[in-house]
């Protein structure tokens, strides 16, 4: 038996909880290096035995069965209801994004140029011509009327 074979078989025997085979024991008696290896493995086992043994802490069962109940309830919930609860946050997020990204209306509802024009127009209203605009318009209408037509209309009109 070679040294590497022996070392492997020693570990295997250790974990299988069986005694090493006779040829392995014979090799160990002859080989100082392998005996040293075997001793070191035993010491390592002592050290590894100090690994902390962890068990479930207090409240583990309560937490687990609560999670399980929740998972069962989710599985029982009808598909439509589950879809709705999936859609609600999606729609809310979309609405929030739209509010942020949507172009804001202009703060000035009347552009500056229009405002200036409007001011000027108000001043124009003060002018006498504009104040008598109605009369001027009536005058223009009368100017377009043919005199003969006017006479005809006057004749047809009963006294």
């Amino acid at each position, binding site marked *: 038996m070679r040294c590497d074979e022996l070392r492997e078989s020693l*570990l295997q025997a250790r*974990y299988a909880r069986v005694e090493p085979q006779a040829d392995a024991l014979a090799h160990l008696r002859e080989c100082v290096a392998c005996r040293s290896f075997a001793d070191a493995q035993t010491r*390592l086992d002592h050290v*590894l035995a*100090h*690994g902390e043994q962890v*068990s479930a*802490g207090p409240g*583990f069962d309560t937490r*687990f069965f609560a999670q399980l109940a929740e998972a069962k309830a989710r599985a029982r919930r009808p598909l439509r209801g589950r879809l709705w609860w999936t859609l609600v946050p999606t729609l809310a997020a979309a609405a929030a994004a739209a509010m942020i990204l949507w172009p804001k209306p202009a703060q000035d509802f009347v552009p500056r140029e229009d405002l200036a024009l409007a001011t000027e127009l108000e001043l124009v209203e003060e002018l006498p011509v504009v104040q008598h605009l109605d009369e001027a318009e009536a005058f223009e209408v009368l100017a377009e009327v043919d005199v003969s037509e006017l006479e005809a209309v006057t004749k047809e009109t009963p006294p």
Partner: protein
Amino acid sequence: MHDPEAALMLDFAGGQEQAFVTLYRSYRDRMVSYCARLLADRAQGEEAAQDVFLKLYRARDTYQVQSRFSTFLYRIATNHCWNLRARLDNKLVRRGDDSHERSAASSSSSPATDLANSELRAALASALARLPDKQRTALVLVHYEGLSYKDSALVLETSEGAIKSLIHRARETMMGELASFVATDTEVQHAL
């Protein structure tokens, strides 16, 4: 192959919820301990064990007896813990720190433990946490969980030869990492 636990799982698949509770009670502490060792953190180990049992519950519709029930459950736990560790490692790489390793060493020691053992326990947890995933898992399965090479190979979906090699390398690394504690019997006794 008669496996009473596989039979319980089949009962559960047939609608007997009590069979699940029996399996849960039988494996609860083992799963917490196993996950805590793989994740090198007790609190994360508890959380992971809860997830493992939820996964087991959900697996009832698809469960088929292909191997022992224990290897089936350990496989769920192993994959879950590896995924958690990978996610955690990615986060740490992005943050560029090694706090996980430091927390692994510190969180494993309990204030209630004997002061003489706390240093050894911290060193042991830290050395275990630094092993590559497969080596650590093989060592924990075989050394702490008591699984055979054959069952461990089924859990890790590899060959028995690969398990032998993983165990050998893991022990070699641990020997180097814990050299001051392993040195001699006298020194070990002194360290304890």
